[in-house]
């Protein structure tokens, strides 16, 4: 089976890095002058040379996003189901070597957490776990999804890499999108951060989006963990990955997230600092490269940044998030994956969005055909239907 690995093999980290850093202002201007942009243009737009064009990039980013997505921001909330994990990842609070009590939500606990999210107004949930294949596996996911599928119009998952067959099962169970981040595309650096567990297999993770695509999942979310390596070079590879996936699984939608390394239990300091200006440039570069890409900003980011990034290319936001299983009501003190930065509630965020002249969209029904179908009576009336979608 042909996968992204064969494309990835044609590119060399150092060559790409020097290409990015040697970009001239003329190349940036050429990229800015285009209406359809390719990977070379993306390189120009994330280069240091493009930083002086940031306002111009932001203006076009704003216009393109408005044209394609309207003035709307999709709202979602993460629901952490488990912090059990057999991997050692030196930046993550769930890392196996963190000797802290672990928790996996039971059916009853999931119900309580879901009630809290529904009360806050959420209709799109993102299920998150670590990687504990003996206990938190496809059977656990299918059971959890069956339990919550009538409560949310959209279910996304961000769990350990699975097989194509397992992704098919998730698809049939009603999962709309699957997120999997490569963390870094630098193979040697990847090995340093992922020292133990199934996640230490770089290639298996690299080929995961291919399996998701083959399984027919509607949307795939990619991202790199910003702070592990040079964000510019890593972001190029993430874009290369998206470019390949879009051409191969052409019926699928794509989203991108920008997790910046945050403080967490027992973690190391980021090797590479990405400031707000850098992140703004990156968001604009993605949008200028791809009008249809969904762009998500989580509560990892600070209040000021989140307030101001709303009109610049973002299409979905989480709010009031807890990154620990049971964090909403069941067990607020359990081990969290990372500290969030923006602690405002969902309703507060919705108000900020509205003050910016945008509308917070809670429900976005993707017309999923699941088996068995809930009867129309069981479904809540559709308050709002828009033709695009969101995740992290």
């Amino acid at each position, binding site marked *: 089976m042909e996968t992204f690995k064969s494309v990835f093999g044609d590119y060399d980290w150092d060559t790409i890095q020097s290409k990015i850093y040697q970009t001239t202002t003329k190349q940036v201007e050429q990229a800015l*002058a285009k209406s359809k942009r390719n990977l070379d243009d993306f390189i120009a737009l994330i280069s240091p040379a493009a930083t002086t064009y940031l306002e*111009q990039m932001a*203006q076009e980013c704003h216009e393109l996003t408005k044209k394609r997505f309207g003035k709307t921001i999709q709202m979602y909330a993460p629901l952490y189901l488990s912090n059990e994990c057999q991997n050692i990842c030196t930046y993550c609070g769930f890392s196996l070597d963190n000797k802290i009590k672990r928790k996996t939500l039971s059916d009853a606990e999931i119900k309580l957490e879901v009630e809290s999210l529904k009360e806050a107004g959420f209709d799109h949930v993102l299920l998150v776990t670590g990687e504990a294949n003996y206990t938190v596996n496809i059977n656990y996911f299918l059971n959890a999804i069956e339990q919550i599928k009538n409560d949310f119009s959209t279910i996304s998952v961000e769990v350990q890499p699975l097989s194509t067959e397992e992704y098919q099962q998730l698809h049939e169970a009603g999962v709309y999108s699957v997120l999997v981040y490569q963390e870094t595309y630098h193979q040697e650096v990847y090995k340093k951060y992922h020292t133990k567990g199934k996640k230490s297999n770089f290639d298996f993770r690299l080929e995961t989006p291919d399996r998701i695509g083959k399984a027919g999942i509607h949307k795939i979310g990619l991202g790199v963990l910003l702070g592990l390596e040079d964000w510019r070079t890593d972001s190029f590879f993430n874009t290369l990955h998206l470019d390949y996936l879009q*051409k*191969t699984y052409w019926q699928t939608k794509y989203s991108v997230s920008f997790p910046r390394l945050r403080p967490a239990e027992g973690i190391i300091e980021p090797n590479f600092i990405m400031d707000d200006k850098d992140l703004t440039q990156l968001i604009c570069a993605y949008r200028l490269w791809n009008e249809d890409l969904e762009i998500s900003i989580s509560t990892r980011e600070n209040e000021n*940044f989140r307030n*101001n990034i709303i*009109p610049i290319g973002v299409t979905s936001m989480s709010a009031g998030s807890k990154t620990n299983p049971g964090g909403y009501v069941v067990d607020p003190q359990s081990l969290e994956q990372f500290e969030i930065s923006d602690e405002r509630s969902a309703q507060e965020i919705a108000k900020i969005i509205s003050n910016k002249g945008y509308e917070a969209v809670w429900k976005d029904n993707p017309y999923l055909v699941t088996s068995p179908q809930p009867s129309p009576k069981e479904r809540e009336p559709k308050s709002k239907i828009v033709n695009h979608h969101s995740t992290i």
Partner: protein
Amino acid sequence: MSLFKIGDRTLKSRLFLGTGKFGSNTEMEEAILASESELVTVALKRIDLETDTDAILNHLKHPRINLLPNTSGARNAKEAIFAAQLAREALETNWLKLEIHPDPKYLMPDAIETLKATEALAKLGFIVLPYIHADPVLCKHLENAGTAAVMPLGSPIGSNKGLKTIDFLEIIIEQSKVPVIIDAGIGAPSDAAKAMELGADAVLVNTAIAVAGNPKFMAEAFKEAVIAGRKAFEAKLGQQYKQAVASSPLTAFLYE
């Protein structure tokens, strides 16, 4: 200028020629040689397969010229597959320009039958180059079916109307994993240059050369236009600058 790879073959010229409508076979031969084309399509229905001294083929016997038999006249997948097999046997090439047009007036390509035939022929080992509408979704289906390239039309065949489908061609070029060859409707060298500037991998021209006052001279003009367009594409065309007038700055918060 980069070389062009299609199937297992690498080509220098990005101009493909058709062999119909010329005033004489000698005129055709002169034009093809002047164009420096390396891939020339011939309608299987016009070739006399019974003799080895076919009039058209005799004029195409040059080391640079590779033959691309086409199934012109086929009205459905079944007929096209039959024609393809005949062509493979007679011309000893597994390359095939797949043309299926049930409508004899405008010769509009049949998307459904073309997709069926592409799938079957790819399985039989053919290098299939299907002639199609400028339909981006069909192009992706053809990729999955194993096509070697796609040949979307610029405008109705033989119309010389140029790139009427330009918006769709741009989408196809953007999305395609296989070479995109713009076929049909290219009426002037400027159309060919434009197609190449968009990023098409090659163009196929027939009528515009065959019916020109001086086909040989026109073939040269197309040769130069295709080279110019490709070079412009590779040199990264400077496009018109948009006015960027910032009404209210969006990034001021970064500097506060």
